[in-house]
């Protein structure tokens, strides 16, 4: 099986270590991964701001780069969701449909395609799992508190097997962090308040490291943590799954 790795634009540029962890982790799991160098962005920043039409070039570039793979894997629930849900603005050629059907968020891919739960990592810290909304309610990577049904979470499945990790329960298990793309800027006051409340919930529950499937949420939270000099850190889930051993 051929796998194309999509590293979201802002991870590529601002958090290369998350990209590296993702790649190393997949290689550790004996997966042959290709990183197409012509990739840029899934188009979400423009689309969520109401400029879907300006994102068409990005979408086309995305499909062009990933059309030949059996799977596209990305360390972002949000980007994977965008490709799945909003690439209907393009002509639905078999190629486009293939890319849309075959894109997977990293945890989803490990659990449901590779069928692996124990990735052999060690991480002796108290971890708070931030449930990034697009992964949770868009891709259904876990059960959410609104819907009635059995509890499940691909992220928890993976973290539970990591040696030393203690997953700390939160008071509000899956409330949004307030990033929301341009929302973080256009609705600055509410965005900041949401972020502050989120961090407080993690701090109150003894969390040392906040982790998530999406670095964008963590970028927002990290910005607040650094400004307010709070005793807590953020790490992408790929970094935790790739740590130790």
């Amino acid at each position, binding site marked *: 099986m051929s796998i194309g790795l999509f590293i979201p*634009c802002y*991870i*590529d*540029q*601002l958090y*290369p*270590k998350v*990209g*590296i962890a993702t*790649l190393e982790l997949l290689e550790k799991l004996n997966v042959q991964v290709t*990183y197409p*160098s012509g990739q*840029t*962005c899934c188009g979400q*920043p*423009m*689309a*969520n*701001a*109401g*400029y879907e*039409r*300006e*994102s068409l*070039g*990005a979408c*086309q*570039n995305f499909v062009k780069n990933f059309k030949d793979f059996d799977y596209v894997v990305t360390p972002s629930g949000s980007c994977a969701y965008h490709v799945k849900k*909003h690439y209907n603005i393009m002509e639905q050629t078999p190629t486009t449909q293939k890319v849309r059907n075959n894109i997977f968020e990293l945890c989803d891919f490990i659990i449901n395609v590779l069928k692996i739960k124990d990735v052999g990592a060690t991480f002796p810290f108290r971890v708070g799992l931030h449930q990034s*909304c*697009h992964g949770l*309610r868009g891709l259904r990577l876990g059960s959410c*508190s*609104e*819907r*009635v*049904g059995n509890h499940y979470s691909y992220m928890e499945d993976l973290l539970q097997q990591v040696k030393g990790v203690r997953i700390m329960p939160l008071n509000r298990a*899956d*409330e*949004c962090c*307030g990033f*929301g*793309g*341009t*929302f973080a*800027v*256009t*609705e*600055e*006051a*509410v*965005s*900041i*308040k*949401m972020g502050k*409340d989120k961090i407080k919930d993690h701090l109150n529950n003894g969390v040392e490291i906040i982790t998530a499937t999406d670095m964008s949420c963590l*970028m927002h939270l*990290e*910005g607040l943590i650094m*400004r307010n000099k709070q005793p807590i850190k953020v790490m992408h889930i790929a970094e935790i799954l790739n740590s130790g051993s």
Partner: protein
Amino acid sequence: MSHPKLANIFNEDEKKVDWHDKALWFVRHKRDLSAHKVKGWETLREFGHQIKAHTLANLDQYLIEFEKNALSNGIEVHWATNAEEHNKIVHRILKECQAKKVVKSKSMLTEECHLNPFLEERGIEVIDTDLGERIVQLAKESPSHIVLPAIHKNRHEVDDLFQQHLNTKPCNGDPQYLTQKARKHLREKFINADAAITGVNFAIAETGGFVVCTNEGNADMGAHLAPVHIACMGMEKLIPKQDHLGVFLRLLARSATGQPITTYSSHFKTPAKGLKMHIVIVDNGRSEQLGKPDFRASLHCIRCGACMNTCPIYRRSGGHSYNYTIPGPIGSILSPGKDLKKHSSLPFASTLCGSCSDVCPVKIDIHSQLYKWRQIITKEMKQPMLKRKSMKIMGSLFSNPTQFNRFAKFCRWALRNLPKSILYAKPNVWGKSRELPKGPKMSFTEWHQNRENTKRMKNNG
């Protein structure tokens, strides 16, 4: 004022934000406890969705059926294309029966139509009889929530208000005492009312009857004591059969407050002997919304308010920041259909987290509709030059990997090297309360390129 501006003002008092957020989260939590107890909850939601979708697809037929049955029950039926016509009809009925004093139970429709000021200007006293609505009426405000109209007021504010208007004694905000006084005050209003106005939660085509749900009993106190009862309904309140109430009454209160059902679910079918009953069926933009395939599901709404309680933005910006009769997520998809220009900031007052859609008892795809409104708004409303240009530039950068990498490299350099005074200058809204990420020297792409090169050299060497 736009949502961000009003939200900003609301956030000046962080304690109040915390209080408001907590109060509504508590309601959301009660909803969870209640919903999670129901076997087949998700199926029930699906049923609710399907029944509403079916009704909308046959709305004209069902309205005709409803009218026919209501008429044969002895109810007078009126049709209003818009708010003004609705107000005129209500006024005409009141004038005909020489009503000067009117009691009104909660009806978001009459709020939408601004019925109160219309009647008051014509010398008719209108008393809102839901306690929360009475509180905001005394405060000369509008409801900030459709189920909890006075959720933005604390007990001390209500205490002050009642001292001023109902001559109560200072009570340190004792809800028991205040409610008791309100009961007494409203009793007198009920006894002396010439007419009662209620909303409609569900109208049933099959029977020509309608259902009104309250916890206080205020709709019934009004409707059964006054000689005339006028029920005002948006035309989307219709459901085909009485049996369908089994689905909706199971969903409504659990979603709204976590109660298994409202205290009173009153089924009106015929007027009581010697009394008059009227129904005003109102369009006011609904048929327009029906014609928009992307947005017609917004007409499924049963006004439970669950999307407000769950919305992290609503909880932290308050209902008044939406500046529309129906605030919160559902208001943000209904209002642009009414006045795109006036409400163009509302679909952006969301992180698209999707909690509203998952909590909605009739499965309205609220967050998807917010996304779709955004696309329309940027096309039809003039956007700030900066936003327009930056989106265009981003669009073209992301279409071209070489350009993107060059530009991004520059940005990383800037993050590392520019002085704080420039990086955190005023236009950087992100940096007002947050640090910017550090600009790493090497991007992932560059790191990967290096690794590939090293591998290749090893293989060649």
